[in-house]
């Protein structure tokens, strides 16, 4: 079956790749564009390890077809740090040791970023509900939630600058 040329923007850069009709965006990111930060945990939209932001919306890259990406603006974990400077979320995940094996971390970071992009001052309850679709085997979530709350505070303080 024919593959389609797809033009999209990934982390601010224009990209072009060939997509099979039934190929997931996750497979295209990992196998065609070699952006292997997004992980495949379940492949069925349950675990959130492949979370990316498409046109401002958090989605599972495994639940989107690669050819759907035509013309879309995609943000992945590879674009989170700014020229080697960690994003406040990444910094706080390290500070709080909010990861152990790290497999869920790219997804948790992108999901957290999507939350703070639209809600800079979330309550703990809001954080927990927002991240309910990101499954972590190791941390028990508490450190993750604290890291997100502190990163939100960091980002709020940074704003006036």
């Amino acid at each position: 079956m024919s593959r389609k040329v797809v033009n999209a923007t990934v982390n601010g850069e224009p990209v072009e790749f060939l997509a099979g009709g039934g190929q997931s965006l996750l497979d295209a990111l990992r196998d065609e564009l070699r952006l292997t930060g997004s992980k495949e945990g379940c492949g069925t939209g349950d675990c959130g390890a492949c979370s990316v932001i498409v046109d401002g919306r958090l989605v599972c890259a495994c639940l989107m077809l690669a050819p759907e990406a035509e013309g879309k603006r995609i943000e992945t974990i590879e674009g989170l740090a700014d020229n080697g400077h960690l994003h406040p979320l990444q910094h706080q995940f390290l500070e709080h040791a909010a990861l152990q094996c790290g497999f869920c971390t790219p997804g948790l970071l992108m999901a957290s970023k999507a939350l703070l992009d639209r809600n800079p001052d979330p309550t703990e309850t809001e954080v927990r509900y927002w991240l309910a679709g990101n499954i972590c085997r190791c941390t028990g979530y508490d450190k993750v939630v604290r890291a997100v709350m502190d990163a939100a505070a960091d980002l709020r303080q940074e704003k006036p600058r």
Partner: protein
Amino acid sequence: MSGVEYLSPGSVAEAVKALQVEGARVMAGGTDLLVQMRVGRAKPRVVVDLKRIPGIADIREQDGAFIIGAAASGAAIGEHEGLRKAWPGVVEAANLIGSTQVQGRASLGGNLCNASPAADSVPALIAAGAACVIAGPKGEREAPVEAIQTAPGKTSLAANEVLVAFRLPKRAVYSGDAYLRLIPRTEMDIAVVGAGVSVTLDASGKCVDARVSVGAVAPTALLVEAAGAALIGSSFEEVALAKLEAAVAAAAKPISDKRGTAEYRTKVAAVLARRAALIARDRAKA
């Protein structure tokens, strides 16, 4: 999932044409279809993605009625202030589907046409008296939401028909709706039971119209007309609520599975319908 052709028609007419091909399947958000393809339960030759059709994901108000595009995402529905105000029950049902990530893609059209007995938005849409706008080779037709699901995974839509939008009627002054579901945890699970209720009151608070629908207690979501009738003419007194509960329990024909026994589901359906009715009443008064 190799060997699948992906099409993204730019109009409803093109989508209908694309569906003439044997083995073509409609995709809206894809949160059910792509999972089914992955596990081999769905094997479409062609996936017809609706999302490039102008307006297919729009939500708009028209003379007090709301038109919700079949592919509008749960997230977009939850962010629409006018819709939240007019139809809070429909919105809360749509927003219960899956995680934040799933909300970014999942649609009401997909939730209905996937035809799961436990689809959260369906009882709320049935209670709301929502109509489906369906396009086919001979043009458009309308059908009530309760006429779409015919069995688990089956709908009354022809293979070359596309659900384009939902039409929610104009609200009377004192009206409200609510949807409640029971799951064993607070997030990320499939309904053991769901109940949607929509009511309209007169100025004195007496119920003049009511629709009650329950999900996950039969092969399809049920419109329980006797439960709505039990409320009409009442001021939600105990005797009316007891009648509503009895009507829901009588209509429920659940299965027993790992999520709950038939007896439990029947009891909970009645309880949730009562609670949803009281929330809908309070919203109607507010």
